[in-house]
């Protein structure tokens, strides 16, 4: 069970402000999601993850990058080719 304190701590780490009235619903959602994973935990292990597949690698070859304007269009704000982020220091 995730407590309201833990939800507050996660919110703090993620720099998200949570109002007092939002705390109970968020805590309920967290627990619902984790309960779902608990269901997945009961699924018997299959052939996938533990099948010993290792060293999936690609060759060191350069492929085209995105055009700058396409990248900047993804951001809320840009300046001189940079993506502008709120104060983080």
């Amino acid at each position, binding site marked *: 069970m995730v407590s309201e304190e833990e939800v507050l*701590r996660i919110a*703090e*780490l*993620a*720099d998200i402000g949570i109002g007092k009235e939002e705390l109970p619903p968020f805590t309920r959602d967290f627990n619902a999601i984790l309960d779902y994973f608990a269901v997945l935990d009961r699924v018997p292990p299959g052939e996938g993850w533990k099948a010993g*597949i*290792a*060293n*999936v*690698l*690609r*060759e*060191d*070859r*350069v*492929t*085209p*990058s*995105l055009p*700058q304007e396409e*990248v*900047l269009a*993804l951001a809320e704000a840009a*300046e*001189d*080719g*940079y*993506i*502008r*982020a*709120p*104060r*983080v*220091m």
Partner: protein
Amino acid sequence: MTVPIGMEAGSAVRETAGSGLAAVEGGRETVIIGLEVHCQLNTESKLFCGCSTDYRSDPPNTHVCPTCLGLPGSLPAMNRRAVEYALLVAKALNCRVADEAEFARKNYFYPDLTKGFQITMYNRPLAEGGYLDIEGDGAEKRVRITRIHLEEDPGRLVHMGTPDRPRYSLVDYNRSGIPLIEIVTEPDLRSPKEARRLLNGLRTTLEYLGVFDGDQEGSLRVDANISIRGSERVEVKNISSYRGVEKALTYEITRQRGVLRRGQKVERETRHFVEARGVTTSARSKEQEHDYRYFTEPDLRPLQVRHWVEGIALPELPAARRERFTAQYGISPEHARTLCGELRLAEFFEQMAPCGNPLLAATWVADTLQGELNYREMEIGKVPPARFRELLGMLCRKEVTDKAAVEVLRRMLDQCLKGEEVQSPAQIMEKNMLGKTAGDTFTGIVREVIAECGDAVRDYRAGRGEALNFLVGQVMKRTRGRADPKELTRILREELEPQGT
């Protein structure tokens, strides 16, 4: 000789914070330093995508794709060469490569990573338990390597506004996803000087392996753990230059000693090094280790590459090259250390050594040229080897005096710096009246003087040695001081010898 300190990595006693031992070495409290060194591997493409790593001269956000931007639905694909490079480093640093290594997600929210996590290695690193021998005071010193792992470089932030009043940040993701190798040492270092030596040793080794270019701006970043024995440990982050490491650590030792002298306790904390001011400032990190919520990166398969190691051939490493230089060229161990301490310098010397006098080449490359380069903050790579070889040739044939050769060298380097075409030493000497383009020039003057100063010649032949000084003086006068007195004395002696002997 190597002096091992401590024990095998596996059984090592952790000498960091809180050991409670207020040991004193040499009258002062022991300083304990361990480093985490991050180096960019010079692959062609990034660690998990095909974006080019050659970003330094390009505008921001032009070497990015959905993967290194962490866009939804994108998947990482591991770069084989980055793994091979990391294994080279592991082998060169005498590490044990893990049977199985795996990547993990380190979760944190900061704009330098768009995904909300960094892909790194956590509890299953690529290699562990190695060492690097560094130059110590007297004998060599063995510094143990705790672990080596691969991770992705985050993006680069530019903070706008003043440090006290930041307004906003600008982000460039070109660096995001560049392969980094992190090398963690045991707390075996005892002074900022040793830390600098370890860094130099790592840099040289990685450059000899051809996996790293230390001249690239920002290609190396260091976090240092430092404590005074018996006190808490402080982590200094954000050190991004070789000189910075020594400066940051020296500052931090002084600060910690000051805290202890005032009877206070050193707090366990993370501090930032502010390079411009040469100080460390407290950086209240909101995260504790467990807040990173590490877990296995589900989008990547583990690495089982231990068996690759036998197939890897290591190139000649610095220590081996030092030994070869002293054996093959007969140069001093000190010169060999200087020359081999930088790959390009060692290679430059090897281009010069066939000039006929390797000892002379060693002195001129390791001492004279290095000094002049340091003075100009110039890289050895900018020096045209052909021109320097011509100058060495002239020195070997005694066509130029040491003093004039230094002048020629200075002018050559200044021409390099100005981006001008570098003239030949002979041209520079002629243009600047640096005398003596051939020994013959002086032989003529010497003969003139002998013909004109009969008295002095007779005195000399009668066994009055001081007469030679007079003759040297006369020749010097006529060459306007351009000749080397030692060389003149030799020519004079030869000319004054009775014929036929």
